[in-house]
């Protein structure tokens, strides 16, 4: 497939991204560069200085809602992708309605309890939609431990599935960005096969 053919195909699809932090902002950037048709992105947080070690934001955006800043940054990459940005906290009452039109959904939360809530809600309410999760991004090094795997047709996991964020093991750009791009890469793999 030429890149023109890839873009044409991807332009027909919508990807949901739950969270606009380290995983979500960088995954969105790669999907827009690849020519995805539409993104539905939700996050309730605002950009802070501590986010800039890994998230796709800039110093002059500190204080802005993440989804608003991300939409601006994505539109600077390309005007061909439609970016729907929702500044809200996702919970089990709004997830299904927000992501119901998505062909694939990327889980991009920071907290593991949110990851679990999201997976449980989607399994109950949008059971056929493939979900691509991130688990195990903290720290540095260990390239050989980062992986992605398919659990079944509706669940994929990216990361080392081991490293948990802590004061001594922070999330930093290289590993977080690698995993976010593993997620974007699976999106392409699934959609370009259709």
């Amino acid at each position: 497939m030429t890149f023109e053919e890839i873009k044409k195909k991807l332009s027909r699809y919508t990807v949901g991204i739950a969270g606009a932090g380290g995983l979500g902002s960088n995954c969105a950037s790669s999907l827009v560069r690849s020519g995805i048709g539409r993104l539905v992105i939700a996050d309730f947080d605002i950009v802070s200085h501590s986010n800039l070690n890994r998230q796709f934001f800039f110093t002059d955006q500190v204080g802005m809602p993440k989804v608003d800043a991300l939409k601006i940054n994505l539109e600077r990459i390309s005007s061909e992708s439609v970016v729907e940005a929702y500044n809200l906290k996702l919970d089990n009452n709004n997830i299904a309605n927000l992501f119901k039109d998505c062909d694939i959904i990327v889980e991009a939360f920071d907290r593991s309890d949110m990851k679990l809530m999201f997976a449980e809600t989607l399994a109950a309410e949008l059971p056929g939609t493939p979900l691509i999760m991130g688990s195990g991004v903290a720290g540095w090094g260990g390239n050989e431990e980062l992986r992605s795997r398919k659990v079944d047709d509706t669940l994929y996991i990216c990361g080392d599935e081991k490293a948990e964020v802590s004061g001594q093991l922070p999330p930093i750009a290289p590993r977080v960005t690698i995993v976010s791009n593993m997620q974007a890469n699976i999106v392409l793999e699934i959609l370009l096969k259709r």
Partner: protein
Amino acid sequence: MKITLNNREETFAQESMTVTELLESKNMTFKMRIVKVNGKLIKREQYDNEVIRDGDNVDVIYLMSGG
């Protein structure tokens, strides 16, 4: 019974066991996890009731904070 647990074949003396019993016997103590039995996600409150039998395909996925 013989089951597939995270893509590996495992043999147990019991003919069946609940999700709770399986997690205990494999010492899978980390609480933030997804359990799937034959592709169906099993919520935590169902762990005591969901029975795993010979031939079942079980996935236990740990969810680590960070993103």
